[in-house]
């Protein structure tokens, strides 16, 4: 897997899978399958996963931390769907402290028995990207302080 920044508002993640385009397309668009892998760090489940796979249709994801009950949600709208190779959707977080949209493009390229999945995440504006970057750093620092406290 590689993570690069092709431009100043974009993050591009590339990963090769030993499966066909069709099977990967199904895994990234079928709620029963999405809930089994799109879970983030350990300890989170996905109690809500709704996908209305058509242009203009909406998606709704909600994750829950089973240990402390924290919830984290996002919602989005599909802009473009080309079965089985390309999906573009716009998403934003429920959390009001994280306003703004990101445009997410999932592309599948087949090469024989393998398929390359490219996930492009483009922040709508530089301000939103900077807030996302800053909030993550704040969380990272808070988490390090918590670990430090726990070790004192």
């Amino acid at each position, binding site marked *: 897997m590689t993570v690069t920044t092709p431009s*100043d508002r974009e993050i591009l993640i590339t990963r090769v899978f030993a499966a066909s385009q069709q099977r990967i397309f199904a*895994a990234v668009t079928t709620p029963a399958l999405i809930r089994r892998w799109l879970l*983030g760090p350990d300890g989170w489940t996905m109690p809500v996963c709704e996908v209305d796979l058509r242009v203009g249709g909406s998606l709704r994801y909600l994750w829950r931390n089973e240990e402390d009950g924290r919830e984290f949600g996002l919602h989005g709208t599909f802009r473009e769907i080309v079965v089985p190779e390309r999906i573009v959707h716009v998403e934003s977080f429920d959390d009001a402290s994280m306003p703004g949209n990101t445009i997410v493009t999932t592309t599948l390229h087949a090469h024989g028995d393998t398929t390359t999945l490219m996930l492009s995440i483009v922040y709508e504006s530089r301000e939103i990207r900077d807030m996302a970057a800053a909030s993550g750093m704040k969380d990272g620092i808070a988490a390090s302080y918590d670990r430090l406290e726990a070790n004192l």
Partner: protein
Amino acid sequence: MELSGYKYPTSGRLDATFAALADPTRRSILARLATGEASVTELAAPFAMSQPAISKHLKVLERAGLISRGRDAQRRPCRIEARPLANALEWLERYRRLWEANFDRLDALLAETAEE
């Protein structure tokens, strides 16, 4: 938790950092400098590129605050500047961790469903 005194990166700086990191030659130069300081001649050696071309890349890296140049007029050794790089990489690292965990699970799911 309020962190007073912690400066968020300004928009311009993060742009410059990302633009600097977007180029594979510049990423290679940074990887080389991570092992210690080097002159332009030393940096140009592994690339099929002229010294002026390498110097252009170094100017971009310097403007982004990712490297600094020594005062020695002859050699002007380049060295890596850790802070802006660490800020940008920390952000990308979170994406990497998140999507690596997701894609490893997707990989396992695809293997499992292939057998069904």
